[in-house]
């Protein structure tokens, strides 16, 4: 730092103001820049330093009007802030209606508080401050040759003094030591989750497990689901609140009239024209929730993969690459719809190990 070796009397900083690199642009008549000083020595003779910024705006009447306006806006902001506090204290929440009223009052007062400050400040800058345009020189960003050489010298000397360059044994062992050190934290992440194993290949569906209607969680007889063209979501009995299970095992059942189902639907897995498919899209796992009766198209609302429910849920359109797996169905002794087994292939999105 230039001048760091010099001693300044305390409080003498005013004399040390650096000369500006900017050319001075004078607007208005400059009064002495420092009219008053605490120094005992009289200020030097000569012309006072020219001002960089004029002391006031050029259009005084306009400035007077602007001043009143700015003050009015600041008062408005103040009132709005008080209103905000009042609204906070005065308006209770706890119901949908009261929360809405509170939101309205708080939001409006907050907007006005900030907005009035903003508009006031802009008017202040535009009409109360003199308009200036200053020019500042740019220095090239690169250091000078000498500075670079000095840096190089310092750096090299340090490197030499440390022996980092001269002592390869130390250098190499240090590098060797840092490699496992860097790997160690990654190992720490191992317990963030279990290994997948074969868990993605199975769901909880077992032979004899009842299908419960999603929502009311009631079992279903084929006769309860007799109108062709319907689609309902079913979940495995006993797991209706287990989200991890539902994320794989949620199933849709659809009722078809005689002769409507076509291959590759596995007919043995259907009961009275009722066919069950996984509800988890084979694209990225959204529930395929939309069904068009007339075309038998199942549509995933996320990315519009479309499956033909009458023909083994084959893909008709969209990014999904595989049909929705079919769940083998049968009925139990009481006549309720049950699974005949688990799905015969993994449900849901593709994964590397799926094959």
């Amino acid at each position, binding site marked *: 730092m230039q001048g760091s070796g010099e001693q300044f009397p*305390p409080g003498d*900083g005013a004399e040390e*103001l650096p000369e500006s690199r900017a050319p001075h642009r004078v607007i208005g008549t400059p009064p002495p820049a420092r009219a*008053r000083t*605490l120094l005992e020595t009289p200020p030097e003779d000569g012309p006072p330093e020219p001002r960089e910024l004029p002391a006031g705006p050029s259009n005084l009447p306009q400035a007077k009007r602007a001043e009143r306006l700015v003050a009015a806006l600041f008062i408005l902001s103040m009132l709005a802030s008080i209103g905000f506090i009042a609204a*906070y204290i005065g*308006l209770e*929440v*706890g119901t949908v209606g009261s*929360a809405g009223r509170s*939101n*309205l009052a708080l*939001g409006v007062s907050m*907007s006005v508080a*900030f*907005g009035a400050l*903003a*508009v006031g400040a802009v008017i202040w*800058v535009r009409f109360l401050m003199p308009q*200036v*345009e*200053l*020019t*500042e*020189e740019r220095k*090239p*960003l690169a250091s000078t040759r000498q500075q670079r050489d000095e840096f190089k010298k310092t750096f090299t000397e340090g490197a030499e003094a440390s022996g980092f360059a001269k002592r390869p044994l130390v250098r190499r062992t240090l590098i060797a030591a840092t490699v496992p050190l860097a790997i160690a934290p990654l190992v720490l*992440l*191992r317990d*963030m*989750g*279990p*290994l*997948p194993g074969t*868990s*993605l290949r199975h769901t909880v569906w077992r032979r004899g497990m009842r299908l419960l209607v999603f929502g009311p969680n009631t079992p279903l007889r084929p006769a309860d689901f007799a109108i062709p063209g319907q689609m309902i979501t079913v979940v495995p009995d006993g797991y209706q*609140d287990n*989200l*991890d299970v539902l*994320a*794989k095992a949620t199933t849709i059942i659809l009722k078809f009239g005689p002769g409507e189902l076509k291959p590759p639907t596995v007919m043995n897995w259907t009961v009275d024209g009722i066919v069950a498919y996984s509800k988890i899209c084979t*694209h*990225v*796992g*959204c*529930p395929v929730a*939309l069904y068009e009766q007339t075309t038998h198209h199942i549509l995933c609302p996320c*990315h*519009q993969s479309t499956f033909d429910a009458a023909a083994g849920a084959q*893909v008709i359109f*969209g*990014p*999904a*690459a595989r049909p929705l797996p079919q769940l083998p169905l049968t009925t139990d002794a009481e006549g309720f719809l049950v699974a005949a087994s688990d799905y015969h292939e993994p449900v849901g*999105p*593709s*994964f*590397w*190990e799926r*094959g």
Partner: protein
Amino acid sequence: MSKTTDALLDGTGRFLDDRLRAARPVRGFLRKIFPDHWSFLLGEIALYSFIILLLTGTFLTFFFQPSMTEVVYHGAYTPLRGVRMSEAYASTLNISFDVRGGLLMRQIHHWAALLFMAAIMVHLLRVFFTGAYRKPREFNWLIGIVLFTLGLLEGLFGYSLPDDLLSGTGLRITQGVLQSIPIVGTYGSYFLFGGEFPGHIIIPRLYIIHVLLIPALLLALISAHLFFMFHQKHTQMPGKGRTNANVVGAPMYPYFMAKTGAFFFFIFAVLALLSTFAQINPIWLFGPYNPSGITAGSQPDFYMGALEGSLRIMPAWEWNVFGHTFAFNVFIPALVPLGIVFTGAALWPFIERWALGDYSEHHVNDRPRNAPTRTAIGMAAITFWGVLWLEGANDIIADQLQIPLYTLTWIARVAIFVGPVVAYWVTKRICLGLQRKDAHLLEHGVETGIIRQLPSGEYVELTKPVDEEMRAVLEYGRVGAPQLTGPPADAGEVPAPGARGPLGRMRTRLSRVLTEGIPVEADGHGNGHGNGHGSPAAVTAGEQEGARPAGPGPEHGGTDGDDAAH
């Protein structure tokens, strides 16, 4: 100067300066010059949105429970009373209905996130189209791209936290995409989710990433971004008296301080107004997440729209070989389109620099028309992104415009390739047309509307030369950036070292495309064939371009004598 100011400076000022020796640096800080242009405010919008995000986000953490423990809801929102839900969802409902100001803060937080991302996008485009990323500002360009990427993640994780049906669906898609990545995908998903989807740990994990990890990175990078901007000084738009060696504008104190403070309040006011009257993410209408449920028309926040669209546009390609699954239909759209855009953006300054052999500092921005190829590439990228973004809402568009959904997807599948090419070509024509207009103004002046009859009987319209301010703008950076080296070897000359070999020829060709433009002819014959050969402003490596505009002109033209070619 008032007595108070004096007393303050002599008292507190001396106290501080005795300890910090701050008078000189702080004075420099106060006198720092900030160039003025409306487009320089775009980055400030992002900055202030970020600050508002920090403020409102901190408030939200006081009440939000990042937990997936199941509870039964008993709060103010009657339709969901008695429903089992995660604590995260219940506490978000609680913030919305049972905490005073909670709904307002939640909505400001969400609106500010949208504004943050929108401002970053527009700011990035401004910097690209004006060439403000050029030397010495490449670091800030790269930081900006990283900030954008982090912002995408931060937003995705943030709107996943309430654990409502919509955000859970977004998480499900995220998990499905992660799982599709070859080799590591399944493990990555199991480690992130602590097992199978959805598990019981993802919300707390996303929470700490959302409130600590990414914000800390954002804060550090934003600080670096601002420091570089401050240290290198801001770019300025071309104008009279503005050169590569100066910076013209109003000083930090009091002008910029007051203006930027006002701007912060203005942004806060607009966000508060939006949050009062424009409902955003009404999670109570969606219900708690359940992997069996979904609503039609599920849409992510707008900045994720392009990713969503690329998932939708992709054909169903999947391979099963050697017992493994390559889910091209998932991981290609998830990684490739945005990978192209971000990687391309990151490399662009270096490609352009190399092609042009332009190693000089640039502090005066280009007008987009004067770099037609760059502008055209930018518009092509916007079109690419825009097609994906629109495709991300294809179901809504199909519904609103009564276009069949599949037709719309097929249109997008074609438009993703054709659109950018058309945008490139059209933009280039428009830029060259605008250059031609500028050249005409410079050559012939401004039409006055006054018709005069000459003694010979001929009628002519009087024109007057463009004024100095306008001339400075029009003349700056004509015919793009400086060209690599001389004319190509078709004149039987030996090509310059940088132009030899296949790579060199590519470089020369690229350089020619990049410097395409309409030259201004001193003799007034603006015939306007835009092959760019007329740009003689060759700048050697490391040469300071200094004050002079890079473009042809009588005072520095003709280094190769190719002016004679016209």
